[in-house]
């Protein structure tokens, strides 16, 4: 139980670092949103489940599973709403973007 929790916590921390690195390094807002939406369910969610598993208590594991289900439902909603708000406020994608179907639709 302890080893499984440790592995889950480490994988979640690595996902959080990679997501934050993508948020810093990607060229425009939309690619940054793609990286940031991974830190929610994969980064924080895996760390939460790892914390629950390493305690070994059934009720704690149940609460962390409810937490990761909440993160899985909520992360696409907030990411999509932020992307929609950004597109409607006219934030241009990077010049390397090849398809932009929202160009004329404001």
């Amino acid at each position: 139980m302890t080893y499984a929790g440790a592995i889950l916590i480490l994988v979640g921390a690595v996902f959080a670092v990679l997501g934050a690195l993508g948020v810093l390094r990607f060229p425009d807002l939309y690619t940054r949103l793609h990286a940031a939406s991974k830190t929610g369910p994969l980064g924080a969610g895996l760390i939460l489940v790892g914390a629950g598993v390493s305690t070994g208590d059934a009720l704690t594991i149940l609460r962390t599973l409810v937490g990761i289900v909440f993160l899985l439902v909520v992360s696409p909603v907030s990411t999509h709403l932020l992307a929609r708000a950004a597109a409607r406020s006219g934030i241009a994608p990077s010049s390397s973007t090849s398809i932009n179907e929202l160009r004329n639709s404001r």
Partner: protein
Amino acid sequence: MIEVVTDIAFGLLGIAMMLAVSRLILGPTLADRILALDVANTIGIGLIATFAVHVHQALYVDVAIALALVGFVATISFARYLLAQVKR
């Protein structure tokens, strides 16, 4: 043994928090700053959950889940604020 793992996780999450905060400072638009704040909040959830393992207190897991609930509402309301700015 688990303390070593939580120390490594604290280091990684600290690096991630620094990267997110630097995007919060740099970010050219308001949407970039909202995004960086969301990522920093998510990393905070991970930090609290790691702290729960570090001190062997399962109660902190509830704090992390409550922070996830509040962070969702914060991001949604910031995005609505961005949309309301557009309509004017």
